[in-house]
């Protein structure tokens, strides 16, 4: 057993995206300090794009992140189009929605089935799963689901990571009807397995409830690109005013800043989306998952995993609906006429609300950029949750190594992305 004063340090958290360390100090049997040190080395993208043509920014900034590159791509395109006054066609928007669905399926599947599932099965890794029986079949199903998400991204975007087809004003290549239709049997084939995974996370008893606000985009069809921001505090905000409500904190031990909403720690991501926009899920998704959906609204951080599992089914259903009704027409990207302006893009990335603000000069070059990243927004709430969790573990006289494991499970439930969180530097402009 440990004494009343001790430290917990985890130097390199595993099964998450990127590099993070954690330090927790316990004094007199109470948590006195929690430092989540996001130590992914910064790459200064906001400086790098300054003076570069705004139309090239989406491809450059998609390199901020490997796993959610398409989210950065979409958000930056929206910001550039708003700066130039470009209104994309209905077909372009449909393809963007489909691309986001593919991203969500692939990204959530990676996080849930490869990173979190071992926690549920009390294993260190999927590598430790049995080579036969249920565990073996689950791994097969996980890869089947993930590969369909990948296939959507490849057909619509050109590839799943740093997609070449989506550009400011549209797509440089429109997918063929037969290629999209070929996805339908694959999408239908993985649906039951996706529902099976929902049940696994519904039956998982991990729990951590804590106070804090939730923020996400809301709309009528649970899409990830619009329409306005809602909060659990009852405030609705137009996308372009989001930053007005945020207070940024420099966290000296972390390479990523933290944020508060109206002075409160808050969280973004699938749990926030299900809490605030769950009523907009597709009818067939609701019909298949009544028990899981009834869990929301929820304050249990681990329900972020359940929310992501539900979103996989939602994205399968939404993709089927889009493809069934889609009749592609030849279309080239809209002409870009550079002009001075300011553009804001707000979308829901897999890990939550992503905000881009670009100031563009008369010649179409970027003057400055400001990005607010989901993991940065969750950072302060994550630290508070870790403190609450450790206090609970101390009350249960849990040994230190077990506490470390519980902390890792909690951080994984947030699905943090450290690459995103650190790869820009906000400058205080005079």
């Amino acid at each position, binding site marked *: 057993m440990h004494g009343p004063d001790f430290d917990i340090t985890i130097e*390199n958290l*595993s*099964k998450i*995206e*990127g*590099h993070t360390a954690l330090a927790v100090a316990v004094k007199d049997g109470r948590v006195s300090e929690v430092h989540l040190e996001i*130590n992914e*080395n*910064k*790459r*200064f*993208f906001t*400086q*790098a794009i*300054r003076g570069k043509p705004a139309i090239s920014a989406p491809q*450059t900034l998609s*390199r*901020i*992140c*490997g*796993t959610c*590159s398409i989210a950065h791509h979409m958000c930056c395109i929206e910001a550039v189009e708003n700066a130039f006054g470009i209104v994309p066609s209905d077909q372009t928007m449909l393809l963007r929605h489909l691309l986001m669905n593919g991203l969500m399926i*692939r990204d959530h599947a*990676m996080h849930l089935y*490869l*990173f979190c599932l071992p926690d549920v099965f009390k294993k*260190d*890794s*999927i*590598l430790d799963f049995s*080579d036969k029986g249920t565990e073996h079949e689950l*791994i097969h199903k996980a*890869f*089947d689901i*993930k*590969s369909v998400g*990948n296939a959507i991204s490849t057909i619509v975007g050109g590839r*799943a*990571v*740093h997609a070449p087809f989506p550009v400011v004003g549209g797509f440089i290549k429109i997918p063929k009807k037969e290629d999209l239709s070929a996805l339908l049997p694959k999408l239908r084939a993985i649906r039951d397995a996706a529902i099976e995974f929902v049940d696994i996370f519904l039956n998982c008893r991990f729990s951590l409830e804590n106070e804090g606000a939730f923020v996400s985009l809301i709309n009528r069809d649970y899409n990830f690109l619009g329409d306005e921001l809602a909060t659990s505090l009852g405030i609705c905000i137009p996308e372009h005013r989001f930053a007005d409500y945020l207070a940024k904190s420099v966290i*000296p031990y972390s*390479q990523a800043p933290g944020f508060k909403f109206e002075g409160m720690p808050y969280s973004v991501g699938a749990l926030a989306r299900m809490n605030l926009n769950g009523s907009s899920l597709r009818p067939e998704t609701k019909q298949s998952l009544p028990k899981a959906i009834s869990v929301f609204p929820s304050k249990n951080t681990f329900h972020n995993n359940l929310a992501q599992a539900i979103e996989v089914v939602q994205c399968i259903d939404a993709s089927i609906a889009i493809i069934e009704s889609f009749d592609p027409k030849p279309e080239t990207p809209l002409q870009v006429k550079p002009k001075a302006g300011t553009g804001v893009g707000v979308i829901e990335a897999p890990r939550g609300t992503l905000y881009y603000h670009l100031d563009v000069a008369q010649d179409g070059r970027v003057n400055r950029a400001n990005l607010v990243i989901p993991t940065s927004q969750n950072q302060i709430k994550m630290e508070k949750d870790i403190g609450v969790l450790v206090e609970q573990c101390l009350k249960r006289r849990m040994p230190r190594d077990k506490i470390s494991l519980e902390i*890792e499970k909690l951080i994984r439930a947030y699905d943090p992305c450290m*690459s995103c969180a650190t*790869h820009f*530097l906000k*400058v205080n402009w005079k």
Partner: protein
Amino acid sequence: MFGSDSIYMPSKSRKKKLRIGWFTFTCSEDSSIILLELFNEHYFEWKEKIEFAHCKMIKSKNDQTGLDVAFIEGAISTDTEKKKLLEIRKNAKKLVAVGACACTGMPSSQRNNFDDKAKEEITPFLKQHGLWGKVLTVKDVVPIDDSVPGCPMDGKMFVSLLDRYFVDFGIVN
């Protein structure tokens, strides 16, 4: 010498596996995502042929000693990263740079070409977190045996390289 003979005799039924480590440095980890996407098609085959001794993405108990092959994703931008990379090199028979940041430095090395204004802006942060002003490629720091270029890495080239190593290390005939 009865005693020494009895210490360890590898079973003929126990297959030799390629002992690999996957390490990420300054990058977006997009090649890691490609690796996980390649799992969709190759996981069960690779599980038979590969021992993932170090792969922080999918396991928490990692060991970087005695590697056949170390795959390095990302550029090198701190003393800590340099020290870690030198240690990995000592522990690996082959070392492979994967992805654009590892092979060319870009886009992680964008700051190498910043103008004076941008350099001035980032300098306090560099000092605070011990980041270098000039970012290096992997081969700037250690000798490399192979590379898989691309942003992210080219998946087909990675699979071909792995197949070659399976032969070179006697995993397959």
